[in-house]
């Protein structure tokens, strides 16, 4: 079965992860622009980061047979450096129109400060102008309130809820998100956001409509196989195959596909038009190297 991981910070992941993801059936990923574990101090750092999301990281993923998309935005944590955030706002329009940019994101609240609110609103405006979906990061602290507030502001800006994915939901937030018509994404991330067993219960209770599973795997202890693993657990727990397909593939495509930048044929018929972008002759896998390595062997291929 094919899977999409619609939230993974692959820039922090190794080639072993990419191989394992492809083997597990992941055909496409979305890499949201986020912070890097420590705050940036220069606008140039943002420019180079955004450029790598649409450039090198996309190329790197393609070498493992995975289609790479991204979202572009200023995350809530770094919105608190206002002089810097103002410069990043200037930069965003240069990237939002680029190929494979499927949303403005991940944006929203962290501490729910006035600065976060200011740049969240500015970016919602940009999403409307660019006719792009929005990926909303809901806060770790005061989550329920922050989630409600995020949706309130989206409604204030007259964004259609089917253009907005509310991410990092839990049992406490999901009911309201679904009721208000937004997409509800769940992050299977060890010890913090959701476990896969809880995810199974949520799909049992709410069904598959508008529910999206992702890993948000990044530089922390996290699991780039969270989506296929959760799908397998759903299967074991008797969840219908169609519900698995919707939550671990189709809903991600239907929501972020509203950008016009993500189409199933991108991975079903890869390299349809440009034969030069083929799997071999690449440089991540140095000349002639094959991507499979036998993990049980002590021999490193020559």
């Amino acid at each position: 079965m094919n899977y999409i991981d619609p939230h993974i910070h692959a820039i922090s992941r190794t080639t072993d992860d990419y191989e394992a993801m492809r083997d597990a059936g992941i055909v496409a990923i979305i890499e949201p622009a986020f912070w890097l574990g420590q705050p940036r101090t220069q606008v140039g750092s943002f420019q180079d980061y955004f450029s790598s999301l649409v450039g090198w990281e996309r190329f790197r993923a393609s070498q493992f047979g995975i289609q790479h998309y991204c979202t572009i935005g200023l995350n809530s944590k770094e919105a608190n450096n206002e002089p810097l955030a103002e410069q990043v706002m200037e930069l965003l329009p240069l990237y939002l129109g680029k190929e494979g940019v499927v949303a403005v994101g991940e944006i929203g609240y962290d501490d729910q400060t006035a600065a976060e609110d200011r740049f969240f609103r500015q970016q919602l405006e940009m999403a409307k102008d660019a006719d792009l979906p929005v990926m909303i990061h809901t806060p770790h602290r005061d989550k329920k309130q922050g989630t409600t507030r995020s949706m309130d502001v989206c409604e204030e800006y007259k964004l259609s809820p089917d253009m907005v994915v509310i991410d990092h939901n839990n049992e406490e937030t999901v009911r309201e998100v679904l009721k208000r018509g937004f997409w509800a994404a769940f992050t299977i991330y060890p010890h913090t956001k959701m476990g896969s067993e809880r995810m199974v219960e949520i799909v049992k209770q709410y069904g598959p409509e508008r529910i999206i599973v992702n890993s948000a795997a990044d530089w922390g202890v996290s699991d780039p196989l969270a989506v296929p693993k959760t799908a397998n657990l759903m299967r074991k727990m008797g969840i219908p195959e169609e519900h698995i397909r919707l939550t671990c593939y189709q809903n991600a495509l239907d929501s972020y596909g509203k950008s016009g930048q993500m189409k199933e044929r991108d991975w079903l018929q890869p390299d349809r038009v440009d034969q030069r972008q083929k799997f071999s002759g690449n440089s991540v896998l140095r000349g002639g190297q094959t991507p499979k390595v036998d993990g049980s062997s002590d021999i490193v291929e020559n």
Partner: protein
Amino acid sequence: MQATTYQADLAKIKEYLLQIIQKQADTQAITWLNEKAQLTSDFNPRSFYIAFGAASRFFNKQPLSLSGAVLPAAKLRQGFQPDTWNLLQTARTCLLLHLPHTDEASYLNILNKLFETADMDEQVALYAALPLLPHPEALVARTADGIRTNMTTVFDAIALHNPYPADYLPEEAWNQMVLKAVFMQRPLYHIDGADQRANDKLARILIDFAHERWAAHRQVMPELWYFIAPYLNVDNIADIEKAVDQGEPLEKEAVLLACAQSPYAAAKTLLAQHPNIEKRIDDGTITWQYIGQSYHQ
């Protein structure tokens, strides 16, 4: 103000590219492109950057069909080969050629911003357009930097089917490009102007590289011998003999082809010891194109 150097008649190139685009793109896309190209009279860099990216919303990446073109592209700019281009990059190139360029500094500022913020396909378009852009001397450092990429498609846009590097890169950067092409296993026979830019330093570096490969029990890319051919001499003839003895059949043919093209007597002697291959070289069966095609198929 210094006079602008042109590599081609911009008006003619624009007309040529537009003709090709019109055969393949839909009306809405062509209207959009014309609109954006007109903006140059009241030029706003920001709108230009956005249009350059947004071209992907109007043009697909179908390979360019030159069958209906009125004249060969190389008539407009020597070595210009848009045969490997796609429709989207052609539209982007059209936009590029409309950039105001008489003020060199502001022209370069805009180009730099485009390069710095480019996605993978935009980088391909920018580098492949090098042989058409005004102020080519000012783009040397950018090209040398582009060669450092590890994105195959971006590297190919510079190194293959592109006459700009042979025309403008200094020897150091040119040699790095060829070496990197060898490392990345790119088809060397698509490097434009390689014959004029072969040099003894490059030949020496490539021989050293062959030694490294042999030490690691690896094969040498047969096309590499093309760049060594003019510089066969007493210092490297032992390597040549070794490659003929121990190389795979295709490499053996490549090395002997290099011998055939060398004025060095010992190389001729070596070739004479392999009459079957010599015959196929003489009758034009074994050429660098044949070597390259056979290796990369």
